[in-house]
């Protein structure tokens, strides 16, 4: 990269206006992503504007459109939906503003860089970890996120693919709980009636996993293993407490930080690699403290 | 009127009703009614409140479907399942309850259901032109573009009449059209009715004003308890009609027993609201019935509402027992002992979806509350007593007020204020739609109120009632009090003279 700027990353962001459209802030995961992004922007001296698309793809297009007319030097988009983000990206392209995608990729349009960890891979990882903790046999239920969202789709797909490799494990029920803790609690309570013999739970996010743990009560962590997704602070606390067996940690703060760092570079015309992989990691009791620290 | 015009088939039977029956949950509304309508005749339906008059005509207009019996038009049995069916058979109806759309203009209401169209789009210009013609025919000067909601109740009635005329029907049904009209409009209406009759239209006319029967009717069918008891000529003496209808004679139609007035209870001084009434001053003394007469739009209702605190006023004051009342505060007025029976029973008097007990207890709700809790049993008992006293025809105190007959609804509105025991009762058209028997009951109640030292201010467009029941008559015109006449010297001519003289240049004909 030959940005032309003399200083290092720490001083190179001054006066750079960056817009970040987050898919939703109704979820601690994305709140962390925002926090990471804001911290980095402050460090670099860039001006970061964050908007909340409230899980609505067309509001997100609106927000990117508005960013463009505000003269942002770079735009970070955290797509509500990978396909639906394409028009937004094309729109910014027309105004020659570099766009970075964070957390989810964009299909059907070329972004400057995708800073992401792979949800499908994360789902597979969750399946492997759950199988390991269950001794590769048992009955498992899946708590699904909001039907039709890409996060639910990809995580579910990864998990289904991953769990298929363990013939001793049977998925006895899949029910939607809309990424919501209360619904996780209610749905798990109900599933326990029809499937009292479950030994494992995969929840497509930590919120639902925490709800399920509430429903399981004393069983959580002992006779039933719960695996969540996201590695939110509450989730990590539950891991340390032994009720949550594991969570696929995507390090949202790191995602946000990396996205801003690279957005500043892009704004200065630096060339960036097409993808920046922030690895998914599985957080378990052994390594949970590492995640909490960040 | 138009003597030389040919009268097509006068006396020829157009519509016949045989053994018609209709029951509602808990009530047999009609139980075998026969009726024959002939071209060129005005057929009066007579009966007590709840006798089934409105139910009968609603089956002719397609609003209800009969349970038994049949309807024949031109000798052939017909099924009238909707208003459209009735219109196609040439039957037009003016209902007892207002059936206009308040948010729409007068013109649109007149064309409701069949607006003139051009290229599929509504031809507003033609619609308004037509409306103007119709309005002129009934003699009201209203701009067709006025919203119906902005009209007074009497002019709404005239619009209803115009709307029915627009159909050019063979059978025209009018359910108590004169209840809300004053003398001059009634005259106007009768002229229209006679004219239609002479053109061969069969008119069904419902009224509780017996004197109107001889004026406009040809034949009378008397309904009692859902049955048609007899058909008599309209020239039958009133006493006889009353006997047929009520089952017993009524000796005195206006049994007012005046007493010497006591101290002033209600004093109104210089009450003014721009555009409605100007400098209105009067007082009402204990034991008095004060009549308030005037033409439609004279502002009587507005004054009463302002006195009661239902509306605000610009200047002047209202005193009860010598103490001024705050303006625009119904609650304070009630506390001071005022009560108002409003003229629009459906819009302002009743909670139509609630039952009879609930409605009767509305005004006394606060009084029946002890420690936050309402004594509903006590309220029910009290409601039962008033309902019995007023002779409300109902299936029980739990009947929804919506399903009561018009006159019985009016009794409920009066009843709730009787329960409240207000010391000065403002009655705005209190006996509108009430049958002769029940009227006498209400007059006697007024007597007992005044005998116990209470007072009544009675607004009425029924001049005989004003003259028969008031101790003093106040006359309003164009928002001003134009005169006061003592009961002794009061005649219809004297009152009308006052009401009209001031109005020569006014909006009312």
């Amino acid at each position, binding site marked *: 990269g030959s940005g032309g700027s003399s200083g290092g990353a720490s001083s190179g962001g001054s006066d750079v206006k960056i817009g970040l459209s987050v898919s939703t802030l109704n979820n601690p995961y994305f709140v962390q992503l*925002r926090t990471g992004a804001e911290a980095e922007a402050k460090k670099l001296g860039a001006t970061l504007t964050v908007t909340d698309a409230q899980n609505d793809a067309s509001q997100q297009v609106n927000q990117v459109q508005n960013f463009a007319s505000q003269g942002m030097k770079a735009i970070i988009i955290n797509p509500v939906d990978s396909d639906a983000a394409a028009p937004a990206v094309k729109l910014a392209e027309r105004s020659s503003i570099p766009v970075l995608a964070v957390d989810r990729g964009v299909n059907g349009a070329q972004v400057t860089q995708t800073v992401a960890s792979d949800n499908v891979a994360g789902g597979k990882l969750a399946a492997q970890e759950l199988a390991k903790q269950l001794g590769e046999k048992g009955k498992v239920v899946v708590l699904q996120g909001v039907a039709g969202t890409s996060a639910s789709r990809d995580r579910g797909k990864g998990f289904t693919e991953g769990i298929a490799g363990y013939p001793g494990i049977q998925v006895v029920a899949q029910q939607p709980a809309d990424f919501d803790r209360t619904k996780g609690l209610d749905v798990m*309570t109900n599933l326990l*009636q029809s499937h009292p013999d479950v030994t494992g739970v995969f929840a497509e996010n930590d919120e639902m996993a*925490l709800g399920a743990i509430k429903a399981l009560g004393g069983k959580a962590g002992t006779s039933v293993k719960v695996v969540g997704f996201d590695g939110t602070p509450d989730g990590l606390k539950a891991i340390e407490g032994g009720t949550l067996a594991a969570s696929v940690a995507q390090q949202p703060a790191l995602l946000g930080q990396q996205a801003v760092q690279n957005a500043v570079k892009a704004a200065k015309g630096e060339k960036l690699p097409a993808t920046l992989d922030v690895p998914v990691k599985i957080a378990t009791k052994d390594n949970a403290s590492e995640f909490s620290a960040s | 009127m138009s003597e030389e015009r040919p009268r097509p088939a006068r006396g020829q039977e157009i519509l016949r009703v045989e053994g018609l029956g209709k029951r509602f949950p808990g009530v047999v509304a009609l139980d075998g009614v026969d009726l024959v309508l002939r071209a060129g005749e005005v057929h009066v339906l007579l009966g007590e409140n709840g006798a089934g008059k409105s139910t009968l005509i609603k089956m002719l207009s397609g609003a209800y479907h009969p349970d038994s019996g049949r309807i024949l038009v031109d000798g052939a049995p017909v099924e009238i399942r909707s208003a459209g069916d009735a219109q196609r058979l040439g039957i037009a109806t003016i209902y007892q309850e207002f059936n206009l759309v308040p948010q729409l203009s007068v013109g649109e209401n007149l064309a409701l259901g069949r607006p003139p169209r051009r290229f599929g789009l509504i031809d507003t210009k033609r619609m308004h032109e037509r409306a103007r013609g119709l309005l002129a025919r009934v003699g009201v000067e209203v701009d067709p573009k006025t919203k119906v909601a902005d009209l007074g109740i009497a002019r709404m009635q005239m619009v209803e009449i115009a709307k029915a005329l627009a159909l050019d029907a063979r059978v025209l049904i009018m359910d108590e059209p004169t209840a809300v009209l004053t003398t001059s409009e009634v005259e106007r209406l009768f002229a229209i009715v006679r004219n239609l009759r002479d053109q061969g239209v069969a008119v069904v006319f419902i009224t509780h004003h017996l004197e109107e029967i001889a004026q406009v009717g040809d034949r009378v069918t008397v309904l009692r308890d859902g049955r048609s008891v007899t058909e008599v000529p309209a020239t039958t003496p009133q006493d006889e009609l009353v006997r047929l209808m009520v089952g017993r004679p009524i000796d005195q139609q206006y049994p007012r027993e005046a007493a010497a007035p006591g101290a002033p209870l209600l004093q109104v001084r210089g009450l003014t609201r721009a555009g409605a009434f100007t400098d209105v001053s009067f007082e009402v003394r204990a034991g008095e019935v004060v009549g308030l007469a005037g033409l439609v739009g004279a502002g009587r209702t507005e004054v009463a509402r302002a006195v009661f605190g239902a509306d605000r006023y610009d200047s002047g004051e209202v005193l009860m027992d010598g103490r001024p009342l705050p303006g625009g505060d119904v609650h304070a007025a009630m506390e001071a002992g005022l009560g108002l029976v409003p003229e629009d029973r459906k819009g302002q008097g009743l909670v139509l979806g609630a039952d009879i007990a609930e409605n009767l207890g509305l005004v006394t709700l606060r009084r029946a509350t002890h420690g936050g809790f309402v004594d509903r049993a006590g309220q029910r008992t009290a409601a039962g007593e008033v309902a019995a006293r007023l002779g409300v025809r109902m299936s029980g105190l739990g009947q929804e007020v919506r399903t009561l007959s018009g006159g019985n609804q009016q009794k409920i509105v009066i009843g709730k204020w009787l329960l409240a025991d207000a010391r000065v009762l403002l009655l705005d058209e209190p006996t509108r739609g009430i049958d002769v028997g029940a009227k006498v009951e209400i007059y006697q109640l007024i007597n007992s109120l005044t005998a116990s030292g209470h007072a009544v201010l009675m607004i009425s467009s029924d001049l005989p009632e004003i003259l028969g029941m008031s101790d003093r008559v106040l006359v309003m015109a164009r928002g001003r009090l134009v005169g006061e006449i003592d009961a002794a010297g009061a005649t219809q001519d004297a009152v009308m003279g006052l009401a009209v003289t001031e109005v020569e240049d006014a909006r009312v004909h």
Partner: protein
Amino acid sequence: MSTDVLTRRPAVRGLLAENGPLAALVALAVVLSLLSGDFLSVTNLLNVGVQAAVTAILAFGSTFVIITGGIDLSVGAVAALSAIVLAWTSTSAGVPWPVATLVALVAGLACGLVNAALITYGKLPPFIATLAMLGVARGLALVVSQGSPIAMPDAVSHLGDTIGGYLPVPVLVMIIMGVITAVVLNRTYPGRAMYAIGGNEEAARLSGIKVNRQKLITYALSGAFAATAGVVLASRLASAQPQAASGYELDAIAAVVIGGASLSGGKGRALGTLVGALILAVLRNGLNLLSVSAFWQQVVIGVVIALAVLIDTLRRRGSA
């Protein structure tokens, strides 16, 4: 089978005939117990009760509002805000939990009063006033919590437990709030005034009812009930969440309307609302037990809600 029982016990039949929604609930329960052996256990029925509790409490509050002819879209957001206020004051601000609970209830009440002020003095349509409050309350919940869940104090979390190992506290709270609703509606002045206002506001005013004041009470009650629901919800999860109860306003209104109330006002009952909330909860519970696929669940819920009310209206028409 169930018809036999009904014919033999006229009291039960009378109750069902008068309570269309109750009949629908019973029918739903019968179908579900035939389809799933797990449905008709005591534990599961108590679960259903717990799951209905939050919606039911919100719906009780909405019943007042709907009876007056209004609508309250803010209940879900106010519930979330109150829960956040409770968690925040008792943890970050260190206020003892009983005081914090009171503060939360007052917060809910205050939201209701603002709604009422906008509606009565500001003459805003209830839809707009409470929609605005929805945004404001949800936003404030996010601002106070910084968008993250706040753990509830332990003492309050016990509200999510059971008493004597059987009776879940949320169910108890639901019953208490239901009884309060029934008493307020049937026996108190404000309750009767609500019916009158919803039936004919002008007639109520001309009968001496202070309409504005009664509306203040109505919306304040709705706010306080929403706060209670928020506390129950948060105590069940042991954590207050800024996004909790999103969209619950529609569930609450649906429960009230399924229970026989009319959005044009003047009608509605506490028991009906409870039944409405239970119908929704039974339905969701049953779909979980039957493991209906995620995509089809919404379809089935929609169809069953329509059917439940349809049966009720058709029955009423048949008897009329």
